[in-house]
Each structure stands twice: as structure tokens, then as C-alpha cells.
């Protein structure tokens, strides 16, 4: 840590105590240092993989922002604090960010307990908590400083239900879902929409995140005799279920939520994920320029590695942050207000993202209907499998 840094830090914490936000704003305006965002997320612990994926997405976006001249000439940077997605650590990080005047807004955390435990601190501290993987229905109810670009499951699941029931003609469904707040909320929206389309839900099974063995669950599914399996899973558990479904002799059509969209899904699932249908927010062959720029940039920066959904969320979140900071400047409150003003921000997930001021979320996710063919995701050509 350089001298200047330390001095600003000491000055900053004194400022927060003695004169509150006004003083710190003045201190910031004078500095020529980068505009700093705080990130609270997992770099170690069981969710560490998502934190590393975030970093990749952030760094790519920052490269592009800097190449385009930064934020009114200033650099944008972030300070990534490892929370392990543990609420005890995320609240401490929240205090750290709130009392650090250099931080103008916060991104994260990953899981709902870690994010929502920190929300009251961000709300009281007047620092925007911008959660981009927080689909818990109550996340943005934490206050007017909570904003999210995480696709509301109320938006996404009906699209998946339409794909499965109307397009693929599946009438009797088995739903397997991750038994977390995300999985449960998604399942409820999916079941509601599927029933509206006239499908019957034969069985729903919730499994915990650490589960590796699904064979007995799948026997239960087989006995319910559905004509399609719906997976509300992440890519690793989704791949496991698909493999084991084939091993216990299930041949039904499998249809999965966008969260399995990852090259890893193909790698981990192997032949078992062939013909799996996926409703997704983006995919590489989508001709939209937002998507193509993102994928080309990502492959170039990371030696040809294909990006996945979590990379895209992080990339979008950083771009959104830049757009908001461009309007709001380096002022925390102005940044909060800027969320109501940003319009049509270029986005991989949404095409053009604009916030719904009531729900503080973005509406209208894009949806591409994909199917795995010859080990690759491809646009579904309308032919049954």
C-alpha cells in the first residue's frame, strides 16, 4: 500500500466518523485515483469457482471501458474482498466498504444469506448494493439502495415452461430442482406457468447443493412416468443428473434452465447431455453485436476459453456499473439516483437493459431456445428429439 493510499484511508475513516458523507465526497472529488467499486464475493470456500468467474467477466469489461477512455477520463477499478459467501464476513466487508470513502458502489455478494445479511448495512450507509446474481425475490426489497440485474425468475421460468410445454409438447413433467432459495423460487414460477400452459406436474424433487448421487431420485422420477424432465440446476449438478438419468435407463426429453448454460455442462455431461434442451439468455452464435463483442473479447483475453453465464453476468454488471457511474459521478447518492436514469445499456443478457424503478430489477430477458447437438449448443431447429 502506497503512502497516498494509507493517508486517504486514514483521512477517510476519520472523515466518516467526524463529518459524515459530505467531507468524504469532497475528498474524493479532489483525487485523481481510479473510481473504485467494492466487490464482495467468494474467492475461497465452496463457491470459490463463481468468484473466479466473476473476476474474468469484470476484467474483460474493465479493459474495454479503459480502451474507450474510462469514466470521463478516470479509470474504473474494483476492490474484490473474499467473503466465502459467508454472512459473517459479508457484513464486515459491508462496513469496510461503507466507511471507505473511495468506494462509490458495491457489487455482490453471491449467495442470498451473504447478500441479504449485508443489505441493512449498505442501506443505512447509503451505498448501492448491486447484486447481479441475486434472484431471491426479497433481495431488492431490502431498500432503495438494492438494485439487481439478476434475471427475475418470474421472467425467466415462464419462458422455459413455454419452451417445454408448447414448443416441445411435453405434457407430463418431472421437475428436479436445487433446494435453495433460487431453486425453490424458480420451481414455483415454473410449475405455475407450466400448469397455465396445460401441463401436468407428475413429481417435483428438491436436492441439496452437495448431492452427487441421483440414481434413487431418478427411480422416483421414472415411477411417476413423466414425458419430460425439467432441470432447475447449475451446470455441474445438471450434468450429473443427465448422466445418471441415462444410466438408470430414463430416455425422456430433458429440458434445463439457463443456469446450466456453460461449456462445462458439455464437458461434464459428455454424451448424456446430447439432445438436452436449454432455454438461455444468450449463446455464442447469437448474432447480436453485444454477444459477439463479448465472446470475441473473452476468447482473446483468456486463451480461447468459452465464456459461460456467470462470466456474462459479471461482464454485464461491470458495464452497468460503468454506465451508472458515468451519470452519477463519484457520488454515492447520485449513483443510486442514476439507476433510475440509465437507459438501454448494452447487455449480453438483456440486449438493452433498463431498470424497472418499482422492482429495481431489469425486465425482459432475451431467450434463445437451444439444444445440444453433436456436443455443442445449437439453436433448436424445431425438430423433436
Amino acid at each position: 500500500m502506497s503512502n497516498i493510499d494509507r493517508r486517504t484511508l486514514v483521512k477517510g475513516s476519520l472523515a466518516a466518523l467526524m463529518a459524515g458523507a459530505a467531507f468524504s465526497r469532497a475528498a474524493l472529488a479532489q483525487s485523481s485515483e481510479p473510481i473504485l467499486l467494492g466487490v464482495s464475493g467468494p474467492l475461497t470456500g465452496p463457491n470459490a469457482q463463481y468468484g473466479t468467474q466473476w473476476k474474468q467477466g469484470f476484467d474483460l469489461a474493465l479493459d474495454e471501458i479503459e480502451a474507450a477512455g474510462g469514466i470521463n477520463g478516470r479509470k474504473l477499478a474494483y476492490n474484490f474482498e473474499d467473503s466465502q459467501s459467508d454472512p459473517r464476513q459479508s457484513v464486515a466487508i459491508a462496513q469496510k466498504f461503507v466507511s471507505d470513502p473511495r468506494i462509490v458502489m458495491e457489487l455482490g455478494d453471491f449467495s442470498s444469506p451473504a447478500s441479504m445479511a449485508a443489505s441493512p448495512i449498505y442501506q443505512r450507509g447509503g451505498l448501492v448494493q448491486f447484486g447481479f446474481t441475486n434472484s431471491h425475490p426479497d433481495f431488492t426489497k431490502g431498500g432503495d439502495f438494492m438494485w439487481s440485474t439478476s434475471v427475475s425468475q418470474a421472467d425467466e421460468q415462464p419462458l422455459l415452461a413455454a419452451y417445454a410445454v408448447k414448443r416441445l409438447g411435453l405434457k407430463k413433467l418431472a421437475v428436479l430442482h436445487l433446494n435453495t432459495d433460487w431453486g425453490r423460487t424458480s420451481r414455483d414460477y415454473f410449475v405455475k406457468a407450466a400448469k397455465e400452459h396445460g401441463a401436468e406436474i407428475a413429481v417435483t424433487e428438491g436436492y441439496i447443493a452437495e448431492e452427487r448421487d441421483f440414481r434413487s431420485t431418478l427411480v422416483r422420477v421414472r415411477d411417476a412416468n413423466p414425458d419430460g424432465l425439467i432441470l432447475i440446476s447449475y451446470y455441474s449438478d445438471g450434468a450429473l443428473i443427465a448422466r445418471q438419468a441415462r444410466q438408470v435407463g430414463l430416455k425422456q426429453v430433458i429440458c434445463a434452465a439457463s443456469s446450466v448454460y456453460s461449456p462445462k455442462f458439455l464437458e461434464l455431461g459428455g454424451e448424456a447431455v446430447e439432445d438436452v434442451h436449454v432455454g438461455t439468455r444468450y449463446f455464442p452464435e447469437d448474432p447480436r453485436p453485444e454477444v459477439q463483442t463479448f465472446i470475441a473479447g473473452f476468447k482473446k483475453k483468456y486463451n480461447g476459453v468459452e465464456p459461460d453465464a456467470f462470466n456474462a453476468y459479471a461482464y454485464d454488471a461491470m458495464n452497468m456499473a460503468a454506465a451508472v457511474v458515468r451519470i452519477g459521478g463519484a457520488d454515492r447518492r447520485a449513483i443510486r439516483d442514476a439507476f433510475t436514469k440509465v437507459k438501454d445499456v448494452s447487455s449480453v443478457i438483456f440486449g438493452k437493459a433498463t431498470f424497472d424503478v418499482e422492482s429495481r430489477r431489469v425486465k425482459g430477458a432475451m431467450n434463445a431456445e437451444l439444444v445440444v447437438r453433436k456436443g455443442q449448443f445449437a439453436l433448436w431447429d424445431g425438430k423433436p428429439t
Partner: protein
Amino acid sequence: MSSWLDYTINGLIVGNVYALVAVGLALIFGVSRLINFAQGSIYLVGAYIGWVAVVQLHTPLPLTIILVAVAAALVGLIIERFGLRPLQNSVRIAPLLATIGISFVLDQLVMLTFSPNPRALPSQLPDVRFQIGGGTIGPLDLLIAGVGLTSALLLFVFLRYSKLGWAVRATAQDRDAAMQMGVDVNRVNQAVFGIAAALGGVSGLLVGMYYNQIDTAMSLQATLKGVVAEVVGGAGNVPGAVIGSLLLGLVESYGVAVFGTSYRNLFAFLLLVVVLVLRPNGLFASARQAPPEPLTGTFIAPSRPVWIPRWALLIAAVVFAILPLLPVSFYVLQTLINAWLLGMLALSLTLVAGTIGQVSLGHAALLAIGAYTSALLSLTFAVPVGLAIIGGGLMSAALGTALISPSFRLRGHYVSIATLAIGEIVSLVILNWESVTRGPIGISGIPPLSLFGYELVSPISIYWFSFIVMVVLALLQGRLLGSHLGRSFRAIRDDDIAARAYGLSLNRYKSLAFIFGGFAAGVSGGIAAHLYSYINHETFNTQQSILALTVVILGGLGNVVGAILGAVALVGLPEVFRIAAEYRILIYGIVLLLLVRFRPQGLLGTV
């Protein structure tokens, strides 16, 4: 009806997978009386070495297995030589804690080398499948079963008929006597660790191939399931571990069949508790085996506690009390709030583990009970927050004691395993009891802390509130320990047979300790719930229980001031290492190992 055949086959298949880990655990327990929490990490290391061999070196399967076995055995030898042998003559709990530290270090090293992204580990066996019942089994299923059964059989023969095997068994029965008879105990230990680690590594490889998936988070689950299987079969009994694993697999599979997937692990841990209650040494404990831990006090280090003068404590209390008036950042205050909350939990655990000798690995369950009770009381019944927190404490005291009471007749490591299971059961009940706990959605909108109508929302007021609560609890506990009751507690810890002979009712005193301890932990959980405003079943997890145990051992068992000091240190250390980002848990693990190595009786010593 045909489905029952499928459930049975599936149960046996996954049971085989558990057996691979459980056999290694049983072997080590048999000789060292040690539950090796690093076994899952060796399994992880084996999986990644296998990945390098298969994907990068393209070795054929037999060579892959040999490579993994040799490399994992080396890791095992290193662990034994440098991690555990130096702890031979220290307290029983020290090597247990060391294995937890070693598992942190190994997991982090693998993660830093290979990144936390999951990888595919392709099976090197042909993908043919045989129809059995409604499902199929493949060559890998058979290989896993073969390896599990063969290794158990070989080990059995080795232990029964070879000279080194005799030495192993002699060491297991009575280490000192074996030494006097000329057995090279160190060599025996080395051999056992090498064999167990080789097995652990190969199991990681095979399980990785079975699921075509390996990731750095797989070690804790493997350890948990392996420990359950091993203890069900009778700790230290190698064939018992295989049967315990198969039984565990079957119970899980039938549990899913009858009640659905979300209850799966619930049945695994219930099985463990039932077995421990009915047969405290596991299903296949041999009748000739000496009781594993004759005295509960064997966990406790003989040491003279560091005497801290009263005035020094007073000064420390005053300094911490006026801290918010000094120019310190809210981040420091928040970190200390976390330390005070952990301190309350540690007080609770140091009372039951340190003073009365019941080591608990499921203490987070008490937090969860307190948190949910307090949150629901204030949300659903509009009870004022202050009273709701007290309600949370009382509920933890009552329910926690009731849940734990069946384990009062257990001894030694079995107590910690039973409490581990109870911790998991509470978490799974919270996940599944949706009408009350709201299941995975969790409880949001919990009102903030308040006292007499004043909301405590600023970090300073929360700091004072939690600090005062902790100090009051600590003073009460200090008073308790100094009383006649406290001496009775310690008498039970030091020699329960003598204590019983003297007329002390063990169960009644253990209950009293758990009631007080449960209250402190419940209050801590209740405050946390109002502080976070959102809780779900993952908020208070096994890692929290392990952290609490680490804190009390670090501070000195039974030592009130030590518990608080330990809490400040263990909340503070990761924060201090925060700048080290991905490396901080690695550093934390190493610091933990060094502490166990050089100060096994804790910083302030056992009281």
C-alpha cells in the same frame, strides 16, 4: 415393486462409493484412535492427480491407479511425519484439530493449483452397461465395488496374519504396551497412514471417474459420509466400515424412495444417531475391544492455566467498552461484533466441551435454533426483540439439551460424531419443515435489534449491546465455574467413573451444562438473526461448528477468558489476512497447525 430392486441396487452402488473413504478412516482410527478429517482432502488430492494422469499424461487405467496410490501414499506419509507425529504426546484433541488444519491446507493448495472450476475426469473403462432391474450398472460400478471389498479383505488378512499387521493391532490395543514389547510404533503408524492415504487417493480417482466430475469442494462431503459410515460399522473395524457404508447407502436410497430427495441426508444422520444410541461402539465393535476412551478427561491437556490478574481483565474490558468512542472504523467494530457473537458461542462450547468434557461438533445447531426462534417470535408474534432473543436462548437451551441427551452415555470421539450428526439433522429439519421455517426461502425482513422501543441500528450501539451481553454471560459462567457446581462439572470431566462413584448423577450435570451453554449459544444466534435481517438453513453450518471448536481449543478448554480471546483471534486472523485474498485460508490453516503444534493446551491453558 420392481422399483425396490432398483432402490436396493442404487443404495449398494453409492454405498460402495462411501466404503472407499470409510475403509481408510477405519484403518487410521483402529490404530491411532483418530478421526482423520484430512482423509477427504487426500481423496481430493487423489482425484486431481488422477486428472493429471488421465487427461494430460494419458496413462492407461492400471498405471493411473498405481500413480495415484503412490502419490497419495506419499502425501499420507508426509502428514503422518510432520503433521501428526510431533503431537503424539499431547492431548487427544490436538491431532484431531491438526487433521482439520491439514485438510484446510491441502484443499487450498489443490484449489490454487487447479482453480476451483469443476473438471471432467473421464472414465477409462469401456462404456458398456448391463441391465439389472429397471436400471443398469457399468464396469466402473463393479470396479468400485471390487476395490472396496478387495481392499477391506486384504486389510483384514494383513491385520490378522502378517507380522506388521499384528504390530498394528497391538498398537491399536495398547500403545504403551506395544512399545514395551519392542513394536516400532512409529513405523506402524507410518505404514497405516501410507495404506490409508493410498486408498483415499484411489477412491477420489474412482469416484471422480464415476461422476465424470471433480471439484475442490468435494472433500468435506466425502469426509462426512465416510465418518458416518465408519462409525455406523464400528469405528476402527475395517470390514465393519464396508458394511456400514452399504447400510448407509441403502438407508439413503430407501429414504429417498419413501420420503423424497430432500430428506436424503436426514436419514443418513438419523441412522448414525440411532446406531450410536443403541450400540454406542457401532454395529460391529468387537466384544474384546477395550473401551475406546475410558475417561472423558483424556481430551484435556494437563496444563497450568495462565493466570491473568483481575485488574488486567478489568482494563481490557474498559478498553473494549470505550473503543467505539475512539476513532476506529465501523469495519473494525463490525469485526469485533462478529467476535463477540462467536465469543458467546465459544463460551457455550467451552462449558460443555472444556468443563464437562463433551466435545461437540454440532454447536452451530444451537445458533440456528436460537436464531429461528427469535426471528419467528418477533416476526409472527410481534414479541419485542429483546424478549425474542431471550426466547431464542431458552429454546436453544431446552431443545438443544433434549436433542443432545441421548449422546450423554457416549464417550470420547463418539460424542463429537453424535453432535456432528445432530447439527446436520437440525439444519436438514430447518430445510424441510417449510410451514414453520419457510424452508430454503429462509426468513427475511427480521426486525433490527431494539431495546425498550429504541432500535439499535448503528454499529456502535450493536457493538455495545453484543459486548455487554457477552460480558454478562462470561461473568455468569465464571461465577458458575467457581461454585460447587463448577467443581462437580470438572470432576465429571476428569474421571467420570470416580465422579459417579462419589454420587454425582452424570446425566443431570451434563444436562445442566448444556442448558446454560445452549442459552448462551441461542442468544448469540438470536442477535445474529436480527443483525442480518435474513437467515436460511445455510447461515449456520458445519464450518461454524468447527470454527467454534477451534476457538475453544485455541483459547484453552474450559477457560472463559480463553474462549473470548480465541474468538477475537479467529475472527481477526482471516480479516488480517484479507489482503492475501485467495491465500488467506491457506495461511489460516498453517497458523492453526502451528498453534496446535506448539501450544496444544491453548493460549491460556485448560482450567
